[in-house]
């Protein structure tokens, strides 16, 4: 039995089991939900145990045909990113059960059933390898969240639930259309198969076609993230949702968007992703600053935290679209860190709400006197949230900003303003809620944490410290997967070539059809390392390479994306229409660029320079 399938199906089984519990005993539902969700978490920890941290590809693959026409498979697998997001979901679900213990008093059974169904949907989204299956899980996760907000929410819950549903649906419809289109073009829903076809050139898109597909996926994900200006559903949904709903929404559901971008938008449509990157980065940076500024002036605690999520998720998007290893690693780390720390913020705000029955900041003050441990827990979470070193968010923010700085230093300058502002809004919140004189309401109605609440809060804090102090426990598998994504994202994307001296007229312009040079790098497959260092290899006119727009690729395992010596020969055969092709090869064992067509406007020399490729800055540098 595939353990991954067990982890995925356990919440579904738990959901069904819980439905069988008699409605008359809510305590049985609570206890049942707690044990079942804990069991799922334990199973997912087992997943981690058997996970090969050194491998980049999919693991625990399970592929069962589900529907024959169209060809849809129940195809799941985990990689170095999705395994952590799966663990995040299974880790937070028992915590959600604990914090809802007293908060949810009516329809208890249904509440926990929906919570577990939500977990099923979320885990499914992260594990699905079949585009259709992915879409099914995407929608499955939507439904229980809709009910969690609509049934157990606060006063304006119906408005918030409908708004949430409509925003997400608007995106999903576009994505569904894109998935169906993709199926028509590729003949399969299988994600790995499509990626392979793209890599080998068996599937190619016209630029406009690729851009439309990219945008269809991207809008769906951007709404979920949410990226400015598509974020306004989030504050409403958070304010009205019950505590557990807020936690799952902020900590896991938003990551469906960023995970989708990383997993689908970038590897499937790399050229469009890169072309749009400057625009998307601008939106991400606006989100970072705008979210922080708006968070600062919120009178409602949950709204404040919701806007802070807009700001934090902006960092994730910035990291992904920096197209650097640091940025992508940081983005994934920030997803996990935000999941933990914002989950904790919502959990503790929920505990305050249970006591004082208000989310308005002005109704508090002096909680530190009345409930010192609760205040300490919130303080640590606050510090994690504002990116203090040795706590989790710092590692992610640092890597994202470093990645942004590598890509374009101005991006880092702007985004770092968000780090200043995060201190403003969080510390101001903390001061108004926890410091000051305790009023009579707070003094009498806000007791400190009880045992059950300790059990919910302490694991979160442990994770904040662990992730902040020893990121090596988490980052290596992430790095393997992001390196693969980065490698996949090189397909069909031009390198900027700058060569001094006799090759002075290399230029960076792309897509100038009619007067372009094609420049293709190719790596040997593993074990196929025929060429020694310093060899020059120059097949100038490969027969199968004649058609313009075709792509010559290779596939091999990427080990590292640092700076590598890239020996190649550029052989120019300028045809009458200034249209020549060049093939070059790297000779490093295991190094794969999957450079597809790289357009170089004019090439003059037929000399054989040694080139160095800097994959992070996407530059080919001439080196003697």
């Amino acid at each position, binding site marked *: 039995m595939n353990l991954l399938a067990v982890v995925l199906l356990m919440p579904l089984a738990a959901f069904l089991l819980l439905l069988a519990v008699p409605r008359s005993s809510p305590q049985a539902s609570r206890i049942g939900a707690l044990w079942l969700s804990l069991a799922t978490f334990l199973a997912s920890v087992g997943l981690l145990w058997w996970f090969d941290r050194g491998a980049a590809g999919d693991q625990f693959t399970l592929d069962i045909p589900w529907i024959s026409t169209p060809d849809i498979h129940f195809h799941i697998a985990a990689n170095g990113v999705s395994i952590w997001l799966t663990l995040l979901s299974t880790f937070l679900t028992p915590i959600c059960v604990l914090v809802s213990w007293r908060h949810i008093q009516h329809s208890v059974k249904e509440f926990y059933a929906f919570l577990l169904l939500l977990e099923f949907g979320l885990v499914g989204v992260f594990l699905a390898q079949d585009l259709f299956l992915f879409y099914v899980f995407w929608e499955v996760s939507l439904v229980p969240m809709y009910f969690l907000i609509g049934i157990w929410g606060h006063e304006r819950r119906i408005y918030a639930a409908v*708004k949430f549903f409509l*925003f997400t649906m608007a995106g999903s419809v576009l994505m569904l259309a894109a998935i169906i289109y993709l199926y028509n073009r590729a003949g399969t829903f299988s994600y790995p198969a499509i990626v392979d076809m793209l890599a080998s050139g068996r599937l190619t898109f016209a630029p406009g076609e690729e851009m439309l597909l990219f945008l269809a996926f991207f809008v769906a994900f951007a709404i979920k993230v949410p990226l400015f*200006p598509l*974020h*306004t*559903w989030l504050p409403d949904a958070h304010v009205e949702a019950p505590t557990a709903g807020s936690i799952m929404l902020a900590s896991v559901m938003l990551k469906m968007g960023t995970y989708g971008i990383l997993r689908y938008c970038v590897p499937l449509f790399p050229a469009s992703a890169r072309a749009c990157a400057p625009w998307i980065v601008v939106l991400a940076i606006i989100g970072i600053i*705008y979210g922080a*500024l*708006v968070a*600062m*002036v*919120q009178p409602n605690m949950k709204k404040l935290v919701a806007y802070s999520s807009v700001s934090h998720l902006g960092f994730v998007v910035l990291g992904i679209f920096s197209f*650097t*290893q*640091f940025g992508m*690693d940081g983005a994934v780390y920030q997803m996990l860190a935000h999941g933990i720390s914002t989950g904790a913020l919502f959990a503790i705000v929920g505990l305050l709400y249970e006591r004082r029955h208000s989310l308005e900041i002005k109704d508090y003050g*002096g909680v*530190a*006197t009345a409930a010192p441990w609760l205040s300490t827990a919130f303080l640590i979470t606050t*510090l994690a949230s504002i990116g*203090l*070193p*040795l706590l989790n968010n710092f*590692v992610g923010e*640092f*890597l994202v*900003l*470093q990645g942004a*700085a*590598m890509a374009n*230093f101005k991006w*880092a*300058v702007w985004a*770092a*303003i968000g*780090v*200043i502002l995060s*201190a*403003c809004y969080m*510390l*101001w919140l903390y*001061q108004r809620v*926890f*410091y*000051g*004189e*305790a009023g009579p309401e707070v003094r009498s109605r806000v007791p400190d944490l009880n045992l059950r609440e300790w059990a919910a809060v302490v694991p979160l804090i442990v994770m904040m410290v662990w992730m902040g*102090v*020893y*990121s*090596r426990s988490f*980052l*290596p598998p992430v*790095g393997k997967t992001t*390196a693969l994504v980065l490698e996949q994202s090189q397909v069909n994307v031009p390198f900027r070539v700058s060569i001094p001296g006799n090759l002075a007229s290399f230029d960076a312009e792309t897509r100038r059809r009619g007067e372009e040079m094609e420049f293709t790098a190719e790596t040997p497959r593993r074990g196929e390392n025929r060429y020694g260092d310093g060899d020059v290899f120059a097949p100038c006119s490969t027969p199968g390479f004649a058609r313009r727009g075709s792509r010559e690729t290779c596939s091999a395992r990427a080990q*590292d*994306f*640092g*700076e590598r010596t890239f020996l190649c020969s550029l052989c120019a055969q300028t045809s009458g229409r200034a249209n020549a092709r060049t093939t070059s090869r790297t000779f490093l064992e295991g190094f794969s660029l999957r450079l597809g067509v790289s357009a170089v406007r004019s090439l003059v020399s037929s000399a054989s320079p040694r080139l160095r490729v800097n994959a*992070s800055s996407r530059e080919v540098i001439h080196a003697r």
Partner: protein
Amino acid sequence: MQLWLIPALPLVGFLVNGLFGRRFSKSLINAIAIGSVALSFAWALRAVLGLDLTHPYTERYFTWIQSGALTINCDFTVDRLTAVMLMVVTGIGALIHIYSIGYMAHEGGYYRFFAFLNLFMFFMLTLVLAANFLVLFVGWEGVGLCSYLLIGFYFDKKFATNAGNKAFIVNRIGDFGFSLAMFYIFKNFGSLDFGAVFGQAAGKPESMLTVIGLLLMLGACGKSAQLPLYVWLPDAMAGPTPVSALIHAATMVTAGVYMTARSWSIYIHAPAAMDAIAIIGIATAFFAATIGLAQNDIKKVFAYSTVSQLGYMFVGVGCGAFSAGIYHLMTHAFFKALLFLGSGSVIHALSGEQDLRNMGGLRKKIRWTFLTMMCAAIAIAGIPPFAGFFSKDAILLAAHHRAPWLYWVGTITAGMTAFYVFRAIFLAFFGEYRGHEHPHESPRVMLVPLAILAVLSAGGGYLFKVPEYLGAVFPRMEIPEDPALMTISTLAGLAGIFLAWLMYVARPGMADSLAGAVNGLYTLVYNKYFVDEIYGAAVVDPVVNGSRAVLWQRVDAGIIDGAANGVGDRAQEIGGALRLLQSGNIRSYAAWVLFGSVVVIVAMAVAGGVR
């Protein structure tokens, strides 16, 4: 050598006291907090004496962050510069911990206070031991956190928590510069390790090093309270007085100077950045000293004095006299810690009174406090042979070497420094007592640290020849001794003391009449040039109000949500119109079916489909 023990011991103290201190007795809390710092001092001493520090000694522990080509290790390193800092931090830290036993004896949150102090020691020691920029940044942010927690120690007081927030946020602005400097360094050097970065610095273009130097300087201006980011430090006096002494005078605020000196190999190739540091330093020194002239709160006087003295250190490192800057950092730690602890003893004696106008004549009542504070006052005034003379002289000499005007402004500032410090001394200890308390001398546990610091303030300049010790660390700077300059700056100090004596002891009415004569100027200085008000009106209010009125209420709720709801409304209208068709009335459906069939048939007929 297990260098990690030096910061780890106070960390253990923090964890034990922080988690369980509430149930502990005071003596157990003392034993844990002070024991851990004392052990840390002993271990640091052992490291400093036992290691050959002519070359940096580095220990590697574990990889903290690794991503692609970026590897950040948790490494600690000791060289002579670190050694000086280690001794100052653990030594003064231990003394202030001991002093706090007496000072905090009657305060609530006793365990919390000592836990935070220990946490501060952990971060400060991490800062000075760090072997790369990011680990230094851990300490840098961490000490800022502890500063925030301890400024807001009396968290039921609004002014205290406001001051804490202000400190943290203003420091964040500095950290913005520091972190950008790190990103820029990594982008261009491919590493954040001190060894790798400083080794490559000489070969990099000057423009790049200037950018790095200026960004690092922004960080240093935040932490070391220089113009324009000094505003948080005077407010930071809301914390308990031992905190002011340890964090906001002796150690944390000097981190910017330390970091600048540590990065000397970047700065010497970026002369523009050095000049900027020197100019900011001298401007801050002068500016803060003028404010210090007119403050009535004894801690505020010394707070502005700290800002001013930090300016001197900046002048030192900005003129290339890195060792002089560090020298002044050390002597300043002695005498300024003593001034703060002494004023704490005064405040303790007067049951919380901080206003100089309600003091007076205390020299007979709290004799030991008076005598020790005199040592510190003479030292800060730069009178030989006290400690401050040597270090200030070294800085002024280097300033003169760089540009004579720096020297002259520095000398005038030295005169003002002597004046305001002795003004505070004379107002507090001379004349007649003007308050209504019953002054009592502090307990011995507070007086012993005062006495030790008094000895250090008096003789520290002789005892610890820092410039010679650091000779191997920094590039050599040959500046000839100049007795004339030395004499002038000493005379400036004496003149300041004399003037203070004249105005506050010999002719007590003179100060008021002088203030009346230059009323406008006095009001300006007394109100600290209204800098806080200007920042509030120019930065804080527009940002907050703009975010509320424009971004939130107009953009978010108005435009974006308005658009979304507009789409919803249109959809609802269309749906509403379509709904009329679905009346549930069978006959109307039948009519529609008939109508539809007719339309279809007609359409097919028109299209020629029916034959």
